[in-house]
């Protein structure tokens, strides 16, 4: 210990030496050293009483009850007093509700927790955490405004995806296509509302909202950021909430649209898929996307990049990083950045209510379309498809596939539909990315 003390004094003496030398040397260069300290001082002295009062005025309670006139929103616009006061309190309660859903009910906590916490932080008065100089704003600018974070998430999801079940039974991809009717049906619905004057959505906004029906978080966030960033918060929350609620939303629809006999259909065992098929498949899909719809290639390209790295089998460390540290880090920042859009002035608008309503309609319509498509396919000759796997076409990987399996086992305990449902499930991801590409391409020319 004495030893360390000695070294500490040695350090101090070294500094002292440095300053002696410096003093001698700095006669020739006084200005440079001084320049750094005589900076302009922004602080103004006040009497203690005024100081305490101005401090009390800067507390959150006062800011919430008597909002400051000159406080601007995160986007630099003026806000209503409601958005500065009661609106923030309501939003904080909404984030608490999201916490409860995520933790107690297990609703997609990986994204809802960071989103809700970001929303909580974004609704703090004065601090401006969601604004251009706050850390949520910095995160949003760094990775959401340029759509990088959802792309990285998609790489990780691609690395986690196994296309084996789809390759084993390609025609089930059609179920993943039919479920996209959730997207486009909702778009029509939104336009009907708009035409009726109930709501004032532009076509771009309506498209961004409809993509909720794709039941893919990163795709929704990508499209919302591109077409209607002002709705990003509501769209992301609706998207992840409803993905988490798939076990509640889907079964009644599945039961209503199927007969008892249909639900008991047993599907043929899946054939073994070779490694080479799995390796070529991502390139095949990407190639088709290039030829048919280049606008969908950012999403499909990122997804297939991750999948291709995994299936290549030669870059195990990159695959592992994609599936773990990289996707986790990005998830944290994506969630916080999306949460910054839960600020009261952006979220507590009538549009949000319509987004929540349209979102659940989109999920329901997509589910129904998938089930009906399976029934349609059964009218043709060939191996029969259990319509319960049609609902998995909405994506919400792997939740929707598990729901298909669970409902199927309710009617026949020996009927394992899980792997059969994974085919439409992953096809739904591709289908939604294609639908996203169509929407983007509509607004490009």
């Amino acid at each position, binding site marked *: 210990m004495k030893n360390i003390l000695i070294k500490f004094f040695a350090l101090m003496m070294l500094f002292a030496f440095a300053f002696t030398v410096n003093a001698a040397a700095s006669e020739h260069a006084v200005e440079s050293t001084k320049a750094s300290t005589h900076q302009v001082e922004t602080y103004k002295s006040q009497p203690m009483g005024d100081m305490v009062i101005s401090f009390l005025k800067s507390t959150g309670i006062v800011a919430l009850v008597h909002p400051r006139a000159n406080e601007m929103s995160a986007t630099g616009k003026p806000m209503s007093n409601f958005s500065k006061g009661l609106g923030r309190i309501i939003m904080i309660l909404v984030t608490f509700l999201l916490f409860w859903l995520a933790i107690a009910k297990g609703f997609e906590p990986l994204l809802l927790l960071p989103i809700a916490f970001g929303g909580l932080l974004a609704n703090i008065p004065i601090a401006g955490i969601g604004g251009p100089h706050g850390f949520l704003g910095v995160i949003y600018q760094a990775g959401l405004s340029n759509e990088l974070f959802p792309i990285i998430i998609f790489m990780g999801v691609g690395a986690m995806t196994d296309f084996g079940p789809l*390759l084993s039974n*390609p025609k089930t*991809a059609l179920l993943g296509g039919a479920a996209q009717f959730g997207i486009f049906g909702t778009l029509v619905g939104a*336009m009907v509302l*708009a035409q009726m004057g109930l709501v004032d959505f532009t076509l771009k906004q309506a498209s961004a909202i409809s993509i909720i029906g794709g039941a893919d978080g990163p795709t929704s966030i990508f499209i919302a950021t591109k077409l209607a960033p002002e709705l990003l918060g509501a769209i992301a929350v609706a998207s992840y909430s409803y993905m988490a609620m798939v076990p509640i939303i889907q079964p009644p629809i599945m039961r209503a649209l199927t007969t008892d006999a249909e639900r008991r259909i047993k599907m043929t065992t899946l054939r073994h898929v070779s490694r*080479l098929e799995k390796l070529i498949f991502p390139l095949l899909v990407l190639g088709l996307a290039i030829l048919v719809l280049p606008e969908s290639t950012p999403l499909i390209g990122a997804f297939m990049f991750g999948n291709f790295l995994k299936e290549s089998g030669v870059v195990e460390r990159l695959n592992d990083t994609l599936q773990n540290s990289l996707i986790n880090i990005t998830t944290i920042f994506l969630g916080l950045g999306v949460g910054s859009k839960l600020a009261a002035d952006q979220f507590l608008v009538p549009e949000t209510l319509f987004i929540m309503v349209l979102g659940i309609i989109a999920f329901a319509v997509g589910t129904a379309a998938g089930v009906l498509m399976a029934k349609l396919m059964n009218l043709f000759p060939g191996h029969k498809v259990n319509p319960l796997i049609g609902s998995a076409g909405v994506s919400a990987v792997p939740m929707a596939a598990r729901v298909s399996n669970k409902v199927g086992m309710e009617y026949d305990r020996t009927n394992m539909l899980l792997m059969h449902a994974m085919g439409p499930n992953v096809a739904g991801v591709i289908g939604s990315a*294609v639908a996203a590409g*169509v929407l983007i391409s509509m607004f490009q020319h």
Partner: protein
Amino acid sequence: METNLILEGIKFMFLGMGTVFVFLVVMIACMNIMSSIINRYFPEPQLNEDVTTSNSQANNKKIIAAITAAITYHREG
């Protein structure tokens, strides 16, 4: 802004669902072609997939080696 929004929505729907299905149908066709080509010309050798280098396996081997050694020692002791 005098466009009939509902009509636009319906146009989007036809174009969108059409594209999605065209894409998926072509994809299914290509998948079937690919699979038949691969299974005919590049069939997978029946390799032993147990030779993965997973940690748990390495661990198990260590454990078994240690136990074998210990028991051998014990038997002789």
